[in-house]
């Protein structure tokens, strides 16, 4: 909605300057998105009259004009083809500037002096598209006047961003009421002139009969016959005001209907009555198979959900949305049927949506219009039609209003208003505030006000709405600042605290936090790699064994991805099923930007479908990924794998998670020999692996890039850091022993450690592998491991012999179980 300062000012003395009005309206809840001066850049442009035209001596396509500019006459060279004697034109004098920035100077054009420029509408910024000739001004313009005054451009326009509850402000009169209510309730509103009430008009002889077949969709329908209309341009002032409101002038009939709509917020429609068949208007649902070409020349296939205006044989308009081309007012129209009605908000909205056809009219009906003012708006239009279209009105208006709307009444308790807002306003004052806005307020006693809700306030439904009105008038910014009391302390719950801790630990490992969209593209190579990962995933989320569901997995994979029904683009049309694709893309992006090494993590939610019309499973995950790590602890060309493994192990350790283990698995997205599954007892928690070389190649990643995904909830549930209890520092010395052994390369290091721990008594408090070697001097198929073991007795100093006995036992077990050869023995 756009409003004009001058137009609004014609109804009420606006108590502030144009620039202040912007702030005033915004603070009243009518947010001004933009404000502009219509004559922007035109203040120096004047009007002139061409009083003589001569050929240019040196150029065939130029003419030399004598222009009467009021105080003096000027010679101006002009090339436009539409110049003519006595034509009123817009003149830019030397020293002025056009809105586009062009500076006008005294100049010579092909040797002939030219002092000024005759302008076209586009040069003045009054038309967007390029014009073929100079702008022709109306005859009544006086030469020498300022152009902005002659064309009524000395006005400001305000573009309002109105929320749905401000429907009343979709007309200037509604805005005038707001200005009164929010500035000074004693200001007078100058109501527009109307056609007098119907005294003297004859009964309807030619006027059609109206039948509303669906009164639930059309609560009121009025129409009036206007005869002998003369179709022509509407007066300049009306055109200007329409333009200020952002509406293109068409002809006097259409302009008047639009003008009144912009006054009263009542959409009106004018039919060419000679094209309406059988003196009857029927408001009904469309019949199946019916069609209508609307005023925008689109053919609309109608269905029974759509309400139409019809004559005896055909639809002539989409009710409340747009008229039909078959009854359009044209230059030959002589009799007009003026419709003013009230249609159901929901039905209009559905029809407008169905046809993708949002009109000025549908916009207003969707937000509910003032059903009590329908006839008044019609009379206003009739007044203007008589005046500016030569219309003759001899017959009464038909007003089909089966169930007149009763005014809603509310009771307001002043205490509740004050308690709700945290203010102290007297009842009298509240009553005045509401009256200023157009409510009828009646003080019952000191504490109660009976409020009757006017028809233009159909947004007001209960007490809270009235409280808002009082708050608005009082001024939101005048309400004092207070703070609610807190009965309980605030804070995070244990799981939320754990989340923060997890984030801190990961950052402490040198990982950078990233955030990826949870929406993914339709064609998603990375997610395709996750077919078997997804089986694994389901096992994690549903705790079911892998094999029992295996068969259905292949076919189900595609169905398990949550798809959007109405994506805006294919690029964001699926929900992520894992954090891994996003993490891989982040490393890929940075790798292509010359980043050599980078480690990242993300905590976020992933989604698995359980079929249409079922709530998808949402799971919070922790993802890690690393490329280009430098330190390769075991010389296995697996620096990223072991960096991430260390980060995860530190995480588990800091969270005091007791027993966890890694196990070799196979998953398509990872290198078949470099991926492990993390388990807490028998529960799968996540996976760690080096990306498959195919993925690495496809995404131009450095070799050995690795990634992890863990289930956050399972990690949290296993965490024990909150129950830390101090254990005494040992008072007796510990004894450390190293052991180097040769074993088959197939035996996992974890098995060796487990065997050692099992073989020793509980005086063995730590077992660590500190060296791993394969190659020269080590027989084919074997590897060398070096272990460090620490023995500690918390109650006494250990004797060498005790430790030796333990070590011997360990060696025996290693030899037996793994055919280990102890080096240096």
């Amino acid at each position, binding site marked *: 909605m756009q409003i004009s300062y001058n137009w609004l000012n014609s109804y009420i003395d606006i108590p502030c300057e144009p620039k202040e009005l912007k702030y005033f309206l915004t603070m009243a809840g009518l947010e001004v998105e933009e404000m502009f001066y219509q004559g922007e850049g035109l203040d120096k442009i004047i009007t002139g009259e061409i009083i003589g035209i001569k050929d240019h001596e040196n150029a065939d396509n130029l003419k030399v004009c004598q222009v009467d500019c009021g105080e003096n006459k000027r010679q101006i060279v002009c090339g436009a083809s539409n110049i003519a004697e006595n034509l009123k034109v817009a003149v830019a004098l030397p020293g002025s500037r056009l809105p586009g920035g062009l500076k006008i100077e005294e100049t010579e054009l092909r040797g002939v002096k030219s002092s000024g420029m005759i302008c076209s509408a586009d040069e003045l910024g009054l038309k967007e598209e390029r014009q073929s000739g100079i702008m022709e001004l109306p005859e009544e313009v006086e030469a020498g006047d300022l152009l902005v005054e002659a064309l009524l451009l000395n006005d400001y326009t305000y573009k309002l961003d109105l929320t749905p509850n401000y429907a009343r402000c979709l007309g200037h009169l509604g805005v005038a009421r707001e200005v009164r209510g929010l500035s000074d309730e004693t200001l007078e509103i100058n109501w527009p002139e109307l056609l007098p009430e119907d005294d003297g008009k004859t009964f309807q002889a030619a006027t059609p009969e109206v039948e509303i077949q669906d009164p639930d969709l059309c609560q009121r329908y009025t129409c009036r016959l206007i005869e002998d209309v003369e179709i022509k341009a509407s007066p300049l002032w009306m055109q200007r005001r329409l333009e200020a409101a952002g509406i293109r002038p068409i002809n006097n009939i259409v302009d008047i209907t639009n003008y009144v709509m912009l006054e009263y917020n009542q959409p009106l429609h004018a039919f060419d009555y000679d094209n309406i068949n059988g003196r009857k208007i029927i408001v009904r649902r469309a019949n199946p198979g019916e069609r209508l070409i609307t005023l925008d020349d689109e053919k609309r296939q109608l269905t029974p959900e759509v309400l139409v205006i019809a004559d005896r044989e055909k639809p002539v308009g989409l009710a409340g949305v747009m008229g039909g081309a078959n009854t359009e007012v044209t230059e030959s129209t002589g009799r007009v049927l003026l419709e003013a009605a009230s249609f159901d908000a929901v039905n209009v909205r559905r029809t407008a949506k169905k046809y993708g056809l949002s009109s000025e009219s549908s916009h207003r009906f969707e937000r509910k219009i003032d059903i009590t003012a329908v006839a008044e708006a019609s009379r206003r239009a009739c007044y203007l039609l008589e005046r500016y279209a030569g219309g003759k009105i001899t017959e009464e208006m038909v007003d089909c209003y089966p169930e007149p709307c009763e005014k809603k009444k509310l009771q307001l308790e002043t205490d509740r208003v004050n308690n709700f807002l945290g203010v102290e306003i007297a009842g009298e004052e509240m009553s005045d505030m509401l009256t200023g806005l157009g409510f009828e307020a009646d003080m019952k006693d000191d504490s109660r006000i009976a409020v009757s809700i006017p028809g233009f306030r159909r947004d007001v439904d209960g007490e809270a709405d009235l409280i*808002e009105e009082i708050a608005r008038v009082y001024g939101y910014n005048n309400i004092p600042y207070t703070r609610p009391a807190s009965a309980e302390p605030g804070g995070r719950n244990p799981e939320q605290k754990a989340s923060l801790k997890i984030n801190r630990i990961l950052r402490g490992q040198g990982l950078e936090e990233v955030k990826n969209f949870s929406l993914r593209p339709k064609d998603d190579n990375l997610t395709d790699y996750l077919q078997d990962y997804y089986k694994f995933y389901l096992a994690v989320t549903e705790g079911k064994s892998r094999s029992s569901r295996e068969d259905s997995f292949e076919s189900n994979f595609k169905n398990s991805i949550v798809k959007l029904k109405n994506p805006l683009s294919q690029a964001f049309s699926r929900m992520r099923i894992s954090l891994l694709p996003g993490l891989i893309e982040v490393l890929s992006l940075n790798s292509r930007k010359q980043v050599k090494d980078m480690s990242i993590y993300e905590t976020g939610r992933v989604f698995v479908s359980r079929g249409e019309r079922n709530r998808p499973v949402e799971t919070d995950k922790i993802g890690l990924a690393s490329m280009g790590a430098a330190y390769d602890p075991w010389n296995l060309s697996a620096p990223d794998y072991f960096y991430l493994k260390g980060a995860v192990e530190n995480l588990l350790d800091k969270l005091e998670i007791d027993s966890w283990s890694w196990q070799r698995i196979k998953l398509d997205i990872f290198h078949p020999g470099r991926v492990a599954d993390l388990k807490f007892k028998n529960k799968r928690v996540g996976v760690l692996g080096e990306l498959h070389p195919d993925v690495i190649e496809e995404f131009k990643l450095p070799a050995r890039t690795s990634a992890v995904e863990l289930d956050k909830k399972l990690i949290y549930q296993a965490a024990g850091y909150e129950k830390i209890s101090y254990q005494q520092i040992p008072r007796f010395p510990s004894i450390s022993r190293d052991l180097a052994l040769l074993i088959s390369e197939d035996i996992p290091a974890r098995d060796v450690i487990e065997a050692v721990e099992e073989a020793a008594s509980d005086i063995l408090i730590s077992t660590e592998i500190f060296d791993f070697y394969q190659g020269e001097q080590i027989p084919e198929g074997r590897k060398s491991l070096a272990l460090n073991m620490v023995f500690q007795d918390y109650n006494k100093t250990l004797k060498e012999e005790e430790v030796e006995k333990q070590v011997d036992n360990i060696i025996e077990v290693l030899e037996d179980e793994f055919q280990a050869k102890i080096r240096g023995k």
Partner: protein
Amino acid sequence: MNIEETINEVKEEFQEMFAEAHDSESLEKLRIRFLGKNGRVKKLYGKMGSIPDESKPVLGKELNKLKQQITRQLEVRQEKIEEEKKKQQLEEERIDVTLPGTRIKTGSQHPLSLVTEELEDIFISMGFKIAEGPEVEDEYYNFKALNIPEDHPARDLQDTLYLDDLYLLRTHTSPVQVRTMEKTKPPIKIIAPGRVYRADELDASHSPVFHQLEGLVVDDKITFGDLKGTISIMVEQIFGEEHSVRFRPSYFPFTEPSAEVDVSCIVCEGKGCSLCSRTGWLEIMGSGMVHPKVLSMSDIDPRSYSGFAFGMGIDRIALLKYGIDDIRLLQENDRRFLQQFK
């Protein structure tokens, strides 16, 4: 030869040689020559037997003195040499103290979680708890329970992404309000940060995926003034006390009265610039008193309780706070961007 003279000779000889001895090696040679098993001093002691008894105490004393003196002189010089040596060694160990230190990678925090954590802490300090909810919602929680009926123009305020005819991606964090009211009796004082979705094309200022932080307070005697006080503290904390805040009537279906909250422009401080579209103010959140219908729908009696709610875009706060001019940077994860947030 008189022993007395010999003592003096030895003394003189030592002093001569000592004057030349400047390293540990020569000092050791001197020690052997004078104090060794067959050294000069030892030999003098051997001669003590052949001198008259009456001279013995005097000469013995002399000789002891000589021995002590030599020992001491040798010791002192040795110490001095060692000290020199140490000094020299330390001197040699000089390093370029300006070479870079060993920096362990420290990671970084994404600006969105940085701001979220900061906001959470501000509200926690005012007694709020943190609530969470699903990102996939249904019509009831996302719209109906928030007084947004079907076919109401309010639906136009948000373009919704649907999964099917029952489920949708939440368009705001407000459903968490409803879920909280359903399972908690007042007093309620929560915030709910989270991810939300809209059918918006991705450009510099719009994104189909973004984040909101919702707040809800319900108790007896909660006022509009309480809403203003709570929000103004948050604004002061996050943007700095020099910024002013204003409340402007607005419309949200689930609050009444509703207010848009503006903060004075962080770039121009109210003078008007391109960031604030020359208004001097930046819109940062929507807020209002919880609509009585919303309370009723969640079984809270609006005659006994009142409440306020607010919701802000975390992404927008991050953009404003850090002066980021393109929302896409928040999901692009370019390292040169990420590393600016510590």
